[in-house]
């Protein structure tokens, strides 16, 4: 009977019975595990959250005016250079107010 094989098997069984958390802690503490893991995490976080995604077409989206109401006069215009909405409001004079 090969005793070394038996011992290996026992060792395996013992290791399997150690709690999952203990095994994870043991693995985490090994630099060859956490160093690449940390580098990969940093790269993934950078790509997903920090780095802006380059878009194929540089489409500049503008804010829009959906509806307007005024008790006086209102105009919806656009600025000449940036084409952003410009709402010009001329409120109605209040009762008793001179026009």
């Amino acid at each position: 009977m090969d005793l070394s094989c038996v011992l290996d098997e026992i060792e395996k069984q013992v290791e399997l019975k150690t709690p999952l958390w203990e095994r994870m802690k043991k693995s985490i503490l090994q630099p060859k595990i956490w160093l690449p893991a940390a580098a990969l995490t940093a790269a993934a976080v950078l790509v997903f959250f920090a780095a802006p995604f380059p878009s194929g077409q540089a489409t500049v989206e503008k804010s829009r005016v959906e509806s307007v109401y005024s008790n006086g006069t209102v105009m919806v215009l656009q600025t000449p250079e940036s084409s952003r909405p410009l709402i010009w409001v001329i409120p109605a004079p209040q009762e008793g107010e001179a026009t």
Partner: protein
Amino acid sequence: MKAIMKNPLFFAFLCFCLCATCVAPAIGGDALNVTIEVIRADPESTVIDPKLEDLAKELRPVLNYTGFTMVKECKVRLIRDEERTVMLSSGRLLKLHFMGFEKKEARLIVGIMEKDREIFRTTLLLVDKGNILIGGPAYETGVLLLRIGARF
């Protein structure tokens, strides 16, 4: 299982999930950051606030105003369905009501109240880092101009 746990990719995935859980709500979420710049546009003054030079350059040819002064700047953070009021000038209030996000736009209802009377109301669809201008109501020797910007 043992092999998986010794794999750096497994730990990288665990760490990424942890980061995503913590970072994602802080970056985006359901909140809208609104910047309100209250500006006085004056036809008689030539004073231009350094912060408003770009705006003055753009508006001077189209509007008959030569002076642009920053009266007030305020930032508000709104969550979905939240309403907030900002004082513009004596007796004049700006009401903001954030309705929520639609695709890449934030729907914001903006109203101006003057002596408890609504003189103006608009529904805006604001893009991230976008802004719109509202002007017209008389203010001191000129008019009131509002630059409303959004970040989300």
